[in-house]
């Protein structure tokens, strides 16, 4: 009798010990990634400030002079070229971070430096492993695009009040772009250079043909679908609506939002499924 009770004591103790991990495991897993990220904080801050400044000079001042001269008094989409591209540059920064974080580091976490396996041996579930990565990347995108926004606001490229919304929009865009990539990366067992291919045949064209540096309508009709399926186009358009109140039909705004949310949630769920299968071997 007393022996049976002792085994139930162990069980009770384990149930109590598991409560926090069940509830907050995703945050604990994200905390690990943030800790690693902090090691490179200096580099990150420098590049978060330096990159938008470079873009501003190259596109806003350099190319902008040419574009504004050609566009006439109406500007591009009713505003100066700099104001037109600023929300898109912020969204592009988000997509760049997402395509970095959701490729090689994922294979690393499963294989080369298998911290996902370590987390899963502790009380973190497969789903929380995935959630932790997504939370971390969202934090990273948010922090970086916030710096982008502040730099651009300082140059007058985005209005301070309404432009702030470009930051959460960019974060959503990054996750919408990255979550399906995460699912793909989680399914890869070997590195055969496929991530480099993804960068070139997926990320690059989606970046170039997403109506970031010019309105999508400038492209011939047969190239426009690339923009339609690109989260970056949807994110950039939403950013323009919030930043300088670009005139877009309400239904189109809804399409942008739904498209981004669907990709983010769909990609996330798929990644959880792939990861659960892979970690439970």
């Amino acid at each position, binding site marked *: 009798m007393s022996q049976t009770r002792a085994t*139930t004591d162990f*069980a009770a103790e*384990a149930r109590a010990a598991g409560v926090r991990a069940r509830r907050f495991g995703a945050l604990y897993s994200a905390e690990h990634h943030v800790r690693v990220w902090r090691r490179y904080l200096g580099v990150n801050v420098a590049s978060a400030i330096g990159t938008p400044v470079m873009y501003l000079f190259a596109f806003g001042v350099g190319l902008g002079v040419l574009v504004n001269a050609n566009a006439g008094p109406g500007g591009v989409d009713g505003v100066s070229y700099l104001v037109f591209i600023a929300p898109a540059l912020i969204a592009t920064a988000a997509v760049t971070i997402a395509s970095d974080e959701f490729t090689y580091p994922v294979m690393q976490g499963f294989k080369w430096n*298998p*911290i996902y*396996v370590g987390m899963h041996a502790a*009380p973190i579930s497969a789903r929380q492993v995935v959630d932790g990565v997504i939370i971390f990347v969202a934090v990273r995108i948010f922090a970086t695009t916030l710096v982008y926004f502040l730099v651009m606001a300082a140059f007058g490229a985005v209005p301070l009040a309404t432009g702030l919304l470009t930051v959460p929009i960019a974060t959503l865009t990054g996750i919408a772009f990255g979550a399906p990539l995460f699912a793909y990366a989680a399914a890869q067992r070997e590195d055969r250079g496929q991530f480099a291919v993804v960068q070139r045949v997926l990320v690059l064209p989606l970046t170039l043909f997403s109506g970031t540096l010019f309105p999508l309508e400038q492209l011939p009709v047969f190239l426009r679908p690339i923009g339609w399926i690109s989260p970056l186009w949807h994110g950039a358009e939403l950013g323009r609506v919030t930043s300088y109140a670009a005139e877009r039909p309400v239904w189109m705004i809804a399409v942008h939002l739904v498209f981004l949310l669907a990709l983010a949630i769909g990609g996330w769920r798929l990644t959880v499924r792939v990861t659960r299968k892979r970690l439970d071997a």
Partner: protein
Amino acid sequence: MTVIAASELVKRYGDFAAVDGISFEVAPGESFGLLGPNGAGKSTTMRMVGAVSTRTSGSLTVLGLDPDDYGPEIRSRLGVVPQQDNLDNELRVRENLLTYGRYFGLPRRLVAERADELLQFAQLADRAGAKVDELSGGMKRRLTIARALINDPRILLLDEPTTGLDPQARHILWDRLFRLKEQGTTLLLTTHYMDEAEQLCDRLVVVDHGRIMAEGSPASLIRSYSTREVLEVRFGSDRNADAAAALAGLGDRLEVLPDRVLVYADDGEAALAEVVARGLQPLTSLVRRSSLEDVFLRLTGRSLIE
């Protein structure tokens, strides 16, 4: 009372049964070993007990809970030392303990205190700020063990804890594990080293092809499946088989290996005298006590390390 109870445990990958009906029980404070060659199903069993691999069939409880339903709860009270270290190479030695402790939701201050104690225990206190890559194999292993202890676990799972380490590093590690055992930590370990099993296990099962071949304490297994002593005689590669024929009937049993003949006898010296009396002149001879290696050979007809 048990902390681990497995009954007819099976794990299949397609048609292949990695674990094919294993049953065992482990009591609290006990040090229990799974001894067997590579590919015997030890690590798979370990992962099922560690609640990271769903069993195909059979029943399993760890700390009185079913891993299918209570994975995170069970893992909260386990310490896991996997066969391959999965330390984070991007973090420093002490940081590895801090991040791992946080997975369990332990308060930062408690984790920091324990991290310092465990670095002492693992004899790594002077390496707290080192990069993981700079550590030797033995140090990484000790760090992994320290990390596994950060949640003050009820059960410590060790999968091939000293494989790949040099003899000195192994002895340091055994000493640390023996201390844990003395403190009453339940150990479940797999190994294909008989000396490791003899040093650390109160009780063990010999596993081969996903099945249990025998169970007992190291001493009782040797008593049941081998003689007290073993005479090893070598006659040269070509002549071992011929010599074995002339040795028929000597001792309890003969085992002919490619490089030597093993004569199982309670009195090894007497057996050696008999060999000479039969007119044979071995190149070398050695009398030793029986080990788990002999038990394994008897049970499977194969050596543990091939």
